[in-house]
């Protein structure tokens, strides 16, 4: 059974909650059980933000992910806080433009993607999160690109539909890393 407990973590404003929502919607489109749980409270403003996403064939028990199979980290405090909680054999994807910690784990699949630098190079400012989502898709195969496209369409509001292609371009770029 393919089941994923994922943790997306970074600063408020990096689109952590948004990329988690796209992943949750992808699971829903694939007919899986899904849950999405944000951290909430004062830490949302400028501080660390994170969200737990569960995708499973079975009803989701605890929506709070404490031992993730997948960690996507977009800043040092989040990386330091969660790196030791990742299950052995899990997947860790970091934005290496922002996570400068030298700590590594040998028992996980580790991917360093300079997502913020890449987003600036490719005129995709502000959506480094989607580049990392592309890497998540490529490294885990948790769903298909076709499903992700549909999920992005669900999550980008109609008033911002011009950003749809931008997001998809960032995801494809991430898949190539």
């Amino acid at each position, binding site marked *: 059974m393919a089941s994923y407990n994922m943790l997306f973590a970074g600063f408020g404003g990096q689109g952590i909650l948004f990329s988690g*929502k796209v992943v*949750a*919607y992808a699971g*829903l489109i694939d007919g899986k*059980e*899904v*849950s*999405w*749980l*944000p951290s*909430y*409270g004062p830490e949302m403003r400028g501080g660390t933000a994170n969200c737990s996403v569960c995708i499973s064939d*079975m*009803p*989701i*028990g*605890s*929506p*709070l992910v*404490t*031992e993730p199979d997948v960690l996507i980290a977009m800043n040092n405090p989040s990386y330091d806080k969660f790196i030791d909680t990742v299950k052995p054999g899990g997947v860790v994807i970091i934005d290496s433009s922002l996570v400068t910690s030298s700590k590594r784990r040998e028992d996980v699949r580790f991917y360093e993607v300079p997502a913020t630098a890449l987003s600036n190079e490719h005129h995709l400012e502000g959506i480094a999160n989607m580049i990392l989502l592309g890497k998540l898709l490529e490294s885990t195969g948790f769903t298909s690109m076709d499903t992700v496209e549909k999920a992005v369409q*669900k999550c980008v509001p109609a008033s911002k539909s011009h950003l749809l292609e931008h997001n998809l371009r960032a995801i494809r770029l991430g898949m190539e890393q």
Partner: protein
Amino acid sequence: MAERILMKGNEAIAEAAIRAGCRHFFGYPITPQTEVSAYMAKRMPKVGGCFLQAESEIAAINMVVGAAAAGVRAMTSSSSPGISLKTEGISYLIGCDLPCVILNIQRGGPGLGGIQPSQADYNQATKAPGHGDAHILVFAPATVQEMVTCIFDMFDLAEKYRMPAMLLGDGLLGQMMEPVEFPDIQITPTEKPWATCGHQNKRKHNIANSLYLQPDQLEQKNRERFQRYAQIQATETRAESFETEDCDVLVVAYGASSRIARSAVMTARAQGLKAGLLRPITLWPFPKEELRKAAQTAKNVLVVEMSMGQMVEDVKLALEFSKPIHFLGHTGGVVPTPAEVLNQLKTIAGGAAQ
């Protein structure tokens, strides 16, 4: 079948209430339930309803008293400290026999407490929702979908028994998104001959009142109400049993805690430990019979809550202290983990085997 969409618990509750015919919402913002008010503010004007942000929680609940007395489906929403402020109004609603729906998306307490998920208002909701001899219906759904279906039932039952119904959720259920679909239900308005909505000189005027200065009259009112409560306790309890048929250890948990407990029970079963889960869906009336049945084969019972163990007493009373009842809980906004519950299950099972 309607499309399943992802929705936050708080927003799904608000949408369900509107679909259940609620056109009067009075609120005051407080984390972690503010999305209920925000959603109502956006949607109510579009369906010809009334959203009003009151000047305080006390004002909001008293607006509910007025709207409910006039016979419309009314709702208010808050989180723990705000609910404490509403208790006077809740008691008046009970005393006037008025139906309404109240949300408590609980956070840590006492006092202002914290803003993270908690279940520490169990006693307040089930034992003393306001002063006087009083009860309200208390529902504790465990998923976003179940919150939606509960809201429809809660409006119906509140009207049927002429009393407030409370949805006792928590920050985790309010903030999380899950797939949800809304049932296509046609709402048929209940006859409310008691409503104070204008008699137009065609009938005797109605009064919504909770003041009875003659002790025997007041006692009589309370006795009538308790007859209704007895009927509710006999017919309206709800619970879900999971893997309880042959269980050695029975876990009792509701709402968000029950999801964590369910994960632990599934892992325990996979490891050969016969665990089961009884999940009360109504907290008042408490599902005593369902619990007794689920506990038949159990040598031990474990109650899991996000509080210091408030439901434990009800479990002990329902089982008449017939077997050891253990407790695992966190409070103040700390959420228990499935691993902790599993550990506790193993410890208890190990102890029982010795």
